[in-house]
């Protein structure tokens, strides 16, 4: 991680390209995010943890040798030798070898089933072991199936131990944390915080034993796998898996062998410039022993990387001292500490607020002036952490206890961070840098500031603060952070949705009269535009206002919705009938093929497992749809900001590996949500097993079958900024799955911005995915029944839009080509054949060829421009 940061920093600043960097990595992967290791259980894709911009490794001045451990350093000759015996010369050598998991000398630590928690491979092996043990515990007896739970233990109650325990729980195993010290996370938090934390951890279903030394680990007598732990106090615990999380050791063996000085507890000794006694050898990160100790956190490591990059480029940077602030990333357990959390500074005073009922413990350590902040501990609610941590060493305004009281009771004074306050400790970004991103680099939103400063891009703990600073600075700079839809509406889409719903309005005229912005000097708000009209159209459709081409609604529809088809570059349309779940009968395929052939349409399979027919003229659309509707097809809504498709793999009905009927579920979902209008298009996917052949995690809602039910992932998409969907809920029954998706989609429809897809919506939703989960699963806002009712109304009110058009002469009349010649094709359309089908002629082809519709017979001429109809050979 630190090496990646070093290379990134060096390449970013070395504009002249003076340095060529070669990186030797022991693991076969690109550098990845160990801090987010537990996320691997969620994403199940090692690539997702890859750090930084992958383009870094394509830089011609950067060489990454993976799976290529360095075996020796020759400082005299200034070379290193890799594991293949190849010798590489260097001018400067940077050691960033990190550390390895410490293995305490306990009997039985090498038994099968004892793991450490350090690399992706460790985590993958742990998962495989737990899954195998679960399988073995699944016994069918005459009395029925007996499931014996997998019993896990974690030795070590620090940050890593708690994450590992959370991982065991996530894998469906029981977990007991064995802590040698008096309380959990004893390095970071005090005893009072430790007690509060223990209660929170117990609430997660994880047992905790403190003051417990592990004497030995015993094998199971039959399997020889790990079976039992014996403790010094005589207690014992039966186990199927043990994770050792008792700390880390610097990987300083290269430094030792090269004769460099190492610290008392290991680590290559460096000065404040991160240089060892050898002027050409540097050490950064966990392997560096700086100020007499090794630091096992990423933030100081990144700082060291920046220092060395600066030094190599002739700068004078020095290590400013370690920021040891930490925040535990365990779902549902808020723990953070910073500064002198234990109050070890002489004469320091502690201010403690504890609310055992709500599981909250917070403490501030102040200097004896009772104003200067020295440190703090937050358990149960770490909200104050983000804004207080950067105030470390500064004077707090007003009464410090106000910062600890629950929001709304005391009213803590607003903090104006000094410019040099460190906001993002992972990437060492100060408040001043963030302000500068707005004032000097013209960033106008949080995403821009993140990209410009890298603040909040590693662990994300500081994001609320980055957001606050950005918004404050934008306001100060007079940049209106406007959520207004357009010149006609001051409201955002979400506000407009609520306004229309609550005011019970049903036409654009009513809505603009009531909520439109009337400019100074004008008497009304005008008649809308291509921004607000489609938005209102979508809101009205989502609230169930009948056919989208009925009455005034017809005037609001955007290009594609207007003709219930997708406009192509020449003004003709493409037609997509619905094929739920990608399932189609041979008879259906024949009808589609025959229609395409009869109307001379170009056909292509879409990415959503259905068939697109291109080149249909306005006046042909009703005839084409009459044929399709008669054969039992209905609108596929490929033209709408609405549900598109539910992609599926073939699932358990045919597949040898499928564990659930994914096609059946996909069909059910597609029929449930068909026609549902939303802020942007919606795509769903259902996979029948963990192999994920339906690529469901690239969808807004992805469903993946498990042997116990369904896992549902949300907020994924392909497109320009691809994003994998994140886990929302696990092992749901089919009924629970429908309710979960119902609520998720309705919440999105009600609160997203115009044209905001689910991925950015989830990211920007206040409180993120966790808050969405609370609303959807736990009904924290009490709107669950309302969302359910809204979806029930949609399902009830669905009608096929095309069938309704065919039954209504007034709507059909809009599909004429010319008002004075409704069946005459657009004379300017021109096509040429390509690969046995037609395509629109280019401007050059039109100019050089001929647009005579008589010349439509063959494919022989290389450039044959034909009119609106082009027959191609069958």
């Amino acid at each position: 991680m630190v090496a990646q940061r070093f290379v990134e920093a060096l390449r970013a600043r070395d504009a002249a390209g003076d340095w060529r960097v070669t990186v030797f990595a022991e693991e076969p992967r690109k550098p990845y995010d160990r801090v987010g290791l537990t996320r691997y259980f969620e994403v199940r894709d090692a690539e997702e943890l890859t750090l930084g911009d992958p383009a870094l490794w394509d830089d011609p001045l950067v060489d990454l040798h993976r799976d290529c451990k360095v075996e020796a350093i020759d400082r005299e000759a200034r070379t290193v030798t890799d594991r293949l015996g190849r010798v590489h010369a260097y001018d400067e050598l940077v050691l960033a070898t990190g550390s390895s998991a410490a293995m305490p000398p306990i009997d039985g630590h090498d038994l099968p089933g004892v793991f450490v928690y350090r690399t992706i491979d460790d985590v993958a092996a742990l998962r495989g072991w737990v899954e195998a043990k679960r399988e073995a515990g699944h016994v069918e007896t005459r009395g029925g199936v007996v499931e014996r739970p997998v019993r896990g233990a974690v030795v070590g109650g620090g940050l890593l131990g708690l994450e590992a325990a959370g991982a065991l729980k996530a894998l469906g195993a029981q977990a007991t944390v064995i802590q040698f010290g008096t309380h959990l996370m004893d390095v970071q938090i005090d005893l009072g915080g430790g007690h509060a934390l223990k209660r929170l951890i117990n609430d997660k279903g994880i047992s905790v034993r403190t003051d417990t030394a592990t004497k030995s680990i015993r094998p199971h007598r039959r399997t020889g796998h790990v079976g039992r732990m014996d403790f010094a106090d005589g207690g014992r615990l039966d186990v199927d898996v043990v994770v050792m999380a008792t700390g880390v050791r610097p990987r300083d063996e290269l430094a030792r062998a090269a004769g460099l000085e190492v610290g008392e507890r290991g680590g290559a000794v460096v000065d404040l410039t991160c240089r060892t006694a050898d002027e050409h050898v540097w050490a950064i990160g966990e392997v560096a022993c700086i100020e007499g100790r090794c630091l096992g956190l990423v933030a100081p490591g990144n700082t060291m990387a920046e220092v060395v990059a600066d030094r190599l480029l002739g700068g004078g940077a020095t290590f400013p001292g370690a920021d040891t602030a930490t925040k535990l990333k365990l779902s549902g357990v808020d723990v953070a500490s910073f500064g002198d959390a234990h109050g070890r500074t002489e004469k320091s005073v502690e201010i403690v607020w504890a609310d055992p009922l709500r599981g909250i413990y917070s403490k501030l350590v102040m200097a004896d002036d009772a104003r200067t902040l020295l440190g703090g501990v937050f358990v149960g609610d770490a909200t104050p952490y983000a804004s207080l941590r950067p105030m470390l060493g500064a004077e707090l305004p007003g009464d410090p206890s106000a910062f600890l009281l629950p929001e709304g009771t005391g009213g803590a004074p607003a903090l104006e961070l000094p410019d040099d306050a460190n906001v993002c400790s992972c990437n060492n970004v100060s408040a001043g840098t963030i302000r500068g991103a707005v004032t000097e680099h013209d960033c106008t939103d949080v995403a821009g500031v993140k990209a410009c400063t890298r603040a909040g891009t590693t662990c994300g703990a500081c994001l609320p603060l980055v957001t606050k600073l950005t918004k404050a600075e934008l306001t100060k700079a007079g940049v209106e952070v406007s959520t207004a839809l357009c010149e006609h509406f001051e409201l955002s889409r979400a506000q407009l949705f609520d306004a229309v719903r609550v005011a019970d309005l049903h036409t654009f005229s009513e809505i603009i009269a009531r909520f439109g912005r009337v400019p100074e000097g004008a008497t009304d708000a005008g008649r809308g535009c291509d921004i607000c009209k489609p938005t209102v159209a979508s809101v009205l459709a989502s609230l169930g206002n009948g056919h989208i081409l009925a009455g005034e609604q017809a005037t609001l529809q955007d290009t594609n919705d207007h003709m219930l088809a997708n406009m192509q570059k020449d003004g003709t349309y493409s037609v997509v009938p619905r094929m739920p779940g990608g399932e189609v009968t041979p008879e259906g395929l024949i009808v589609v093929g025959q229609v395409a052939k009869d109307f001379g349409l170009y056909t292509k399979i879409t990415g959503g497992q259905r068939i697109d027919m291109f080149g249909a003229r306005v006046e042909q659309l009703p005839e084409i749809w009459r044929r399709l509707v008669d054969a039992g097809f209905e609108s596929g809504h490929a033209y709408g900001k609405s549900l598109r498709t539910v992609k599926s793999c073939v699932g358990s009905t045919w597949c040898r590996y499928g564990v659930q009927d994914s096609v059946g579920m996909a069909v059910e979902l597609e029929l449930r949500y068909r026609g549902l209008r939303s802020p942007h298009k919606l795509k769903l996917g259902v996979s029948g097993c963990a192999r994920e052949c339906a690529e469901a995690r690239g969808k807004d809602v992805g469903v993946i079958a498990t042997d116990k039910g369904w896992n549902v992932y949300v907020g994924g998409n392909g497109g320009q900024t691809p994003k994998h969907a994140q886990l929302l809920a696990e092992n749901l029954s089919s009924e629970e799955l429908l309710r979960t998706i119902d609520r998720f989609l309705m919440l999105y429809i009600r609160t997203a911005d115009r044209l905001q897809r689910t991925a950015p919506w989830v990211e920007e939703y206040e409180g993120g995915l966790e808050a969405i989960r609370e609303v959807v699963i736990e009904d924290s806002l009490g709107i669950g029944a309302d969302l359910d009712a809204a979806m029930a109304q949609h399902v009830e009110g669905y009608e096929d839009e095309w069938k309704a058009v065919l039954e209504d002469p007034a709507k059909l009349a809009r599909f004429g080509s010319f008002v004075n010649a409704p069946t005459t094709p657009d004379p300017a359309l021109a096509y040429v054949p390509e690969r046995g089908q037609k395509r629109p002629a280019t401007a050059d082809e039109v100019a050089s060829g001929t647009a005579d519709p008589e010349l439509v017979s063959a494919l022989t001429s290389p450039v044959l421009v034909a009119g609106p109809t082009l027959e191609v050979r069958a």
Partner: protein
Amino acid sequence: MTALTPTSETAVVDGPGWTAVCPLDALAPERGAAALVTGSDGEERQVALFRLLDGTVCAVQQLDPYSGANVMSRGIVGTRGGTPTVASPVYKQVFELHTGRCLDAASKEPRVGLAADLASYPVVVTGGVVHVGIG
């Protein structure tokens, strides 16, 4: 177009260069329709007709200069600062309906050989029939 006084309408639309296109009722308010109109030069043109809420009808060229497709009649009708507009259904350029002037090019250039503004044509509605004047 609308500037013409009602008293002179009948006389004008009977003259050369005027074509009776369709009944006013065939046009839906705030939605366009395409028409084929032969000018006095004998050339057939595609025209986009728009009926506004007050009954006024505007006519501009059907050809969208930014996409090269004959689609202007399928754009969304609205207003900018109170002036009636139509937005191209392809790349969303905004044009003034009365004059055809392009108000917002949406950071695009028109296709080679095409003007950025739309041609606009006079329209007279008389006896419930829409007439377009193409000289």
